[in-house]
């Protein structure tokens, strides 16, 4: 169902399928942990999405590519004088 929903082309029982299935299983374990903190109805929910068959390293390498810069601390709006 995941492959159909997110248009994945890897074949069942291929090397990639087996690898991605492990990442998917790891993701479901993460979701249980992350959701255990969500006690209020407005709290964040975690679950299956388009990134669920990526390893955490793959996700970081692809999508988390910002080079952080340190910014000066905000010290209030400047006013004349």
């Amino acid at each position, binding site marked *: 169902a995941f492959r159909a929903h997110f248009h994945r082309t890897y074949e069942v029982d291929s090397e990639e399928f087996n690898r991605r299935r492990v990442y998917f299983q790891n*993701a479901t374990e*993460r*979701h249980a942990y*992350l959701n255990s*903190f*969500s006690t*209020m109805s*407005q*709290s*964040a*929910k*975690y*679950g299956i*999405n*388009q*990134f*669920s068959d*990526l390893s*955490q390293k793959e*996700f*970081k390498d*692809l*999508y*988390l*590519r*910002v*080079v*952080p*810069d*340190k*910014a*000066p*601390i*905000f010290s*209030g*709006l400047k006013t004349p004088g």
Partner: protein
Amino acid sequence: LPARFDWRDKAVVAPVQNQGACGSCWAFSVVGAMQADHAIGGSQLEQLSVQQVLDCSYQNAGCSGGSPSRALSWLNQTKLKLVPRSEYPYKAKTGICHFFSQSHEGVSVKDFSTYDFSGQEEAMMGQLVAHGPLAAIVDAVSWQDYLGGIIQYHCSSHWSNHAVLIIGYDTTGDIPYWIVQNSWGTTWGDEGYVYIKIGGNICGIADSVAAVFL
């Protein structure tokens, strides 16, 4: 400050984009702030070229990563005009910088500010209302699994790795939150948006926040 403020209500926020398999979030956040500010100034909302920033901002590394403040610094120094997205479409890969003549229509930066608002998120709300959507950097490691709702946990400050556009806030409910536009398409999160609790610098949302002036 109003209890709730959302720049989408003023029709100055462009639809959620999808950066694809390219580390271009830094360019999407900067261009998102610029095109919103341009519309706030009275122009028709027009999507500007992310690919132009990606290809031409040599201090950054295109799809391999970059920094919103470095991109803004470059835009401010060069006064380069960003052309409409239709003239320089997004390709999700770094390419050769296309040059346009000075007479070509486009939008340039007049100035920008970048501040650390940690511990001062109410002042950050003021910046958002006064100056338009803000480009910010966040820790988005746990966002791999995010589906919706307000993030309160599992997000560190001071370990930023992703850039986003803050377009509003809501303090009317039990948990006050920032309304944040991401660039991972509309199938991610809540139609492409993520909500982060205000206060405590959750996800490092206040670590480095840029406002653009056009």
